[in-house]
């Protein structure tokens, strides 16, 4: 708790700074795309939120596995704390994608492999949170949600690589790639990377706040039980 309280203000400041720079740069100072017009400005929200949606589930998988193997309570509380952030990121990716898709594809929604996998990932996030809320015994809830997280990881992987598995659907390939030829133009790439860093740091900030809350809530529950027992 001492380490997290020391780094939290710095991570929060960096998150606000990088989000402000990335989004202001992207929104105000980048040109329109020659085909997509000004809708390309949605990329600075859509790509970082979609990337975070998948990566947050991956983080939850790692921390859930640590719980299963080592019974480390903080790790599973970190997974629990991350789930609402991941669900929000997935919802932002789905909503901004639909708003972007309507003028570009002529449709708010298509049962495209990547879109469908993302919708299922969102439902897994909701299921994961519902399972935590439904079970009173914290250790039993941790066990069952960890198993759910393991199953949901299949859809997180499909969300990321669906475009490679099935060469069909409306969704374009990855906007960011290590292969320079596949990457988007530098003029869009630079603010996009800063926005990505901002979304990542925002996640770390919220994760620290929410995990500390979960640890305190666990202690609060223990003290209340002790009081009740006299």
């Amino acid at each position, binding site marked *: 708790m001492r380490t997290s309280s020391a780094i939290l203000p710095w991570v929060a400041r960096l998150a606000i700074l990088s989000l402000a720079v990335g989004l202001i740069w992207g*929104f105000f100072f980048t040109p329109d795309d020659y085909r997509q017009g*000004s809708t390309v400005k949605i990329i600075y*929200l859509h790509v970082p939120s979609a990337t975070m949606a998948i990566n947050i589930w991956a983080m939850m998988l790692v921390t859930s596995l640590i719980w299963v193997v080592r019974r480390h309570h903080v790790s599973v509380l970190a997974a629990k704390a991350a789930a609402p*952030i991941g669900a929000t990121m997935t919802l*932002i990716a789905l909503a901004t994608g639909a708003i972007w898709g309507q*003028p570009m594809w002529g449709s708010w929604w298509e049962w495209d492999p990547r879109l469908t996998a993302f919708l299922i990932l969102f439902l897994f996030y909701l299921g994961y949170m519902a399972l935590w809320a439904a079970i009173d015994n914290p250790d039993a809830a941790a066990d069952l949600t960890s198993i759910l997280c393991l199953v949901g990881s299949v859809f997180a992987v499909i969300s990321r690589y669906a475009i490679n598995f099935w060469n069909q659907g409306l969704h374009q390939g990855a906007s960011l790639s290590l292969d320079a030829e596949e990457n988007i133009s530098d003029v869009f790439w630079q603010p996009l990377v800063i926005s990505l860093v901002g979304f990542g740091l925002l996640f770390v900030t919220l994760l620290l*706040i929410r995990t500390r809350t979960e640890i*305190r809530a666990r202690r609060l529950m223990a*003290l209340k039980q002790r009081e009740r027992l006299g």
Partner: protein
Amino acid sequence: MPELGPYAGEVLSAYAVAFGLLGALVIVSLWKSARVRRALDEIEARREPRRNG
């Protein structure tokens, strides 16, 4: 404000939805943190006299 052309509605609504959802997440996280911290402080303050006495 940049010239957004015929897609101004789409671009602005995408930003409004994203900021709305992120803002709600931040507010709920901070509110829950403050509420749990206050409850924990109260219960620990109640236990303190017992422990000292």
